């Protein structure tokens, strides 16, 4: 499931944010990929829609890397 979540967010980062696929790995920070807090909010909103979950603001604010976002989403999905 973790892989599925990662592949989905990676896909969004490529298609919606125009980041090259080879630059993205699970330990990339949003900042390294040239993405800011608004990009993170947008990506997580799309992921919420896809997986039908809600990520609390307090959790979202702590997402600095793709891994943190993926694990946060994974946690919400499994609940």
């Amino acid at each position: 499931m973790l892989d599925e979540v990662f592949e989905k967010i990676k896909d969004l980062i490529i298609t919606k944010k125009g980041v090259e696929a080879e630059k993205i790995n699970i330990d990339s920070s949003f900042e390294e990929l040239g993405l800011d807090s608004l990009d993170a909010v947008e990506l997580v909103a799309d992921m919420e829609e896809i997986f039908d979950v809600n990520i609390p603001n307090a959790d979202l604010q702590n997402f600095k890397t793709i891994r943190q976002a993926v694990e946060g989403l994974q946690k919400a999905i499994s609940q």
Partner: protein
Amino acid sequence: MPGRRVVVTGTGVISAIGHNTDQFWNSIVNCISGIGPYEAVDSSLVRFQNGAEVKNYNPSSYFETKELDLMDRFAQFAMIAAKEAVKQSGMDCAYDQGTRTAVICGTSIGGVVSQEKTYMDLYRDNKSRVHPLSIPRTMPNSAASNISMHFGITGPVYTISTACASSNHAIGNAYWLIRNGICDRALAGGSETPFTYTFLKSWEAIRVVAQDTCRPFSKNRQGMILGEGGGMLALETLESAQQRGASILAEIAGFGMSSDASHITKPDQQGAERAIRLALQDGNIPPEEVDYINAHGTGTLINDSMEIGAIKNVFGQHAQEISVSSTKSMHGHILGGTSAVEAVATVMATLNDILPPTANYQEPDPECDLDIVPNASRPKKIRYALSNSFAFGGLNAVIAFKKWEGS
């Protein structure tokens, strides 16, 4: 200071913590917050349930049916505040056929309550026509226009929309118009009514609204709380106020504005600093005589630490002597109207030598380590007070008020 001196001779306000200046100031002095569950929208459909709504508001006790037909809730609030400010001031807005009076109102979003109704009629209820006055109710200049018509004001009348700095830009513009002789008096302020389903969902999406309440400068702050209301200042030249024997509440001593040109939502400290410095320079204000700052203080993690950093950089060692509070902790964030309501709080603070508190404060934050007047108002001699606004879009506006000492 170049040009003519400009004074405040009236204030008006309607908000979650009072329907007039007396009620509003009494709530502030007693640190009473108006934040609680909102009722205008079904809160089970939104991720946050609290706001600072104007409760027990009956429009028909303020307006005739015909007037209400023309005015969205946001215009009603601006008009109520304007009427109070004019009544207190005693100024004759229509003097010289009103050509020498200005009305400048701030709003971020205008008549969204009416706009929402048209959407509901069309998209939800499949009606084929909407209310014939939907356009004049919705247009953001409707508050300024209705005020101008009510008082017969025929001078400069316009609306400024710079998100959460709108009303400070409005007050600052009015101050400069009077100072520079373009007009002699003005009603300046603003209003906002953000409690609609589409607008609350939009704020939900951008992730800056707190779940519980607004705790500016507190380490455990979670974000802002939306509020609604309006505020207005009656401004005129010192000469005009003295000639007619008006009570002077405060003097406007400086105005500064800047743009971050950086990020659409993330504030840039340098932009905030420049606006504060420009307000001080504009009025030749000695920084060491600034005793109080009504902060932008939204209660978001980023804004509050940025703002304290800016104050420290501008004032250096003197920052330790300045009291900084956020009245948004009580009346909520009224967006385009917020700095008008905060201007009323700041005028009352300088008039009464009382520091408005920061309500809901729980936990010290090392990044916000100035005197933030936690949870209780207290007396302090205030010579100059600033009112800060730092808006989405990176637009900053700061007004400096000076205590009126009788000369």
